[in-house]
């Protein structure tokens, strides 16, 4: 039966991890960029749309893991949304394949201002191991302006959380 298990969960310690510390340098840099851009404050909440532009799906596994109860992304006001029209942030993975470039550009165009673009993983940074291939552009920055890079192959959920929290802090103090 499910009910006894749910009741038990109510009285046991949560399995959720303590949040990671946010690196000050990253926050500072983001605050400055935000101020420079003069963007409106959105409040301590970010809606995220994930776009896979050629990832091997390793990054997607770790991004998905952010939603499990151990990382519990939503407690920070961060949530994944189903449409770019509802999003503040595009979280983009992969070396940007030529076959995905147009889809990414259209997704970005659909995202309302103010908006941020976060490149996740080594591939999204500069093409990663796929650098030099005929089939890729060589990183998300080849097509769109990137606000934050979260490197790693793939970055761990904790690293992803650090990056996203930095973005959130920057936005709240901007």
């Amino acid at each position, binding site marked *: 039966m499910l009910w006894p298990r749910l009741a038990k969960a109510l009285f046991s310690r949560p399995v959720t991890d303590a949040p990671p510390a946010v690196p000050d340098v990253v926050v500072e840099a983001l605050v400055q960029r935000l101020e420079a851009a003069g963007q409106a404050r959105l409040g301590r909440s970010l809606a995220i749309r994930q776009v*896979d532009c050629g*990832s*091997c799906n*390793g990054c997607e596994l770790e991004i*998905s*893991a952010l939603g499990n*109860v151990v990382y519990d992304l939503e407690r920070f006001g961060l949530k994944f949304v189903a449409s770019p029209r509802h999003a503040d942030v595009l979280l983009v993975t992969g070396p940007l394949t*030529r076959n995905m470039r147009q889809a990414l550009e259209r997704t970005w165009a659909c995202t309302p201002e103010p908006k941020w673009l976060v490149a996740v993983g080594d591939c999204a940074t500069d093409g990663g*191991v796929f650098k*030099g291939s005929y089939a890729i552009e060589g990183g998300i920055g080849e097509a769109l302006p990137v606000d934050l890079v979260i490197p790693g192959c793939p970055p761990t959920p904790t690293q992803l959380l650090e990056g996203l929290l930095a973005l959130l802090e920057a936005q709240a103090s901007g």
Partner: protein
Amino acid sequence: MSASEPTGAQPAPARPRAAGAAATIRAGRQQACRPYPRFLLEAGQWRGLVVALRDDPTLELLGLWAEAGLVHAAFHQPNEGLLLASVAVAERHYPALSPVRPGAIRFERMVHDLWGHVAEGGTDARPWLDHGRWAASAPMSARPPAVTTPPPQPEFLGAEGEGVHQIQVGPVHAGVIEPAHFRFHVQGETVVRLEARLGYLHKGTLALMLGKSPRLAARFAARLSGDSTVAHSWAFATAAEQALGVVVPPRAVLLRAIAAELERLHNHLNDWGAVCGDASFVWPQARCGVLREGVLRAAALAFGHRLMMDLVVPGGVARDLAPGGTAAIRAALAAVAQELPGLQRVYESHASLQDRVVTTGTLAPALAAAFAAGGFVGRASGRGFDCRKLPGYAPYNTMAFTVPVQVAGDVDARLQVRMAELHQSLALVESLLARLAPGPLKLDLPQAGGEGVGLVESFRGEALHWMQLDDGGLIRAVFLRDPSWLQWPLLEAAIEGNIVADFPLCNKSFNCSYSGVDL
């Protein structure tokens, strides 16, 4: 489909003599490929093979790929192993296998898009990986022609009838998921036809591997499909080791298997929970998320990387089990073992969940057999193939485990198979850990030529890798075949007649790799 005996000539006056398909292949000139032979067939022999395959459904097509001037196919002879066949391409053409093996369709489209070889008489000539957005078409051919026209509109197979309309989904989806375009034809709520268009993730992986040593190219195999990085790295390493006649140290073999079973465990937990979540029943998903996180953290502690990427390398393993790794793995798996029975009871005792999964997304056993579907997709529809068992490879050939098989073919059957496999993997890891003895981890590979095949059971099914090395030990030709090649087309069949709202459930119960087939 009816099974006919592969031996003996059957009267066929209007066409060439129909020998058994395997015998037809063995009549070709044998090439030095290990551990399974490859036969080079004359064009006439290859045409004879097409006829023989039509009359002999027992020989299963596992893959089709190419290099400049040649087309290769891998077949599976039940209970005997693999058999490879090749044919020279004559003026860009070779006789198609798709009329007699529907699984060949997407391979033929891929071979055309990458190498420019045309499958003569093929049943589908539409582009597949090539969306018209590369600088040159047939990028792996000797002289790729430059592309000067804008990308063409894709063509989809139609459906006609009263009230039929289309739903277009993707390539950017609503969840955290890989990109593809799904074109549904629906009548009311019912799916009449689904066609998936993939290729959005094409990264040119195969071309990047050419001219590199197996050691250097292994990182591409490890990134073919991140969720099966261990299995693909292992299949790739096996192909290199077979080509060079290298035997991996026993400790490395055991560590590979431990990593592969941990990978199976974390993926099965993830998907088993996610299917329940897609039916809006979130408790199992929440619990599976916790258990899976435990497995990944144990993997990170034991092998230095949560997904164990780049752990398996040609010649052995890159890293040893870290101190405390064994204890961490045992603790994580004990938590899984303790909770699985309760999860299964909850799954079986909630009618609202059972109503969504039982008789949903049914894949007929005949179709699973016709496409040689591997993994839990095949095993939930009566095809009990698991390459750990047969043809078998170390260390599994000396271990006791069973291969669970169901015949219902629905979402429920696929979940039942995965739950049973979770139990098998838990036991396998325990006995693998118990067998570990100190020893070397890795051998250097000789710089020599050769040709080899690697077959390793990933959580999805068998990963099949083939490579040819030149005399300097560099990759001349290579192909990495993810099991999803033969499962994607079956998803289209399984969704037919279901409601649109059940597509996420069906899709997740298959969980085919997008990146794995987009290459």
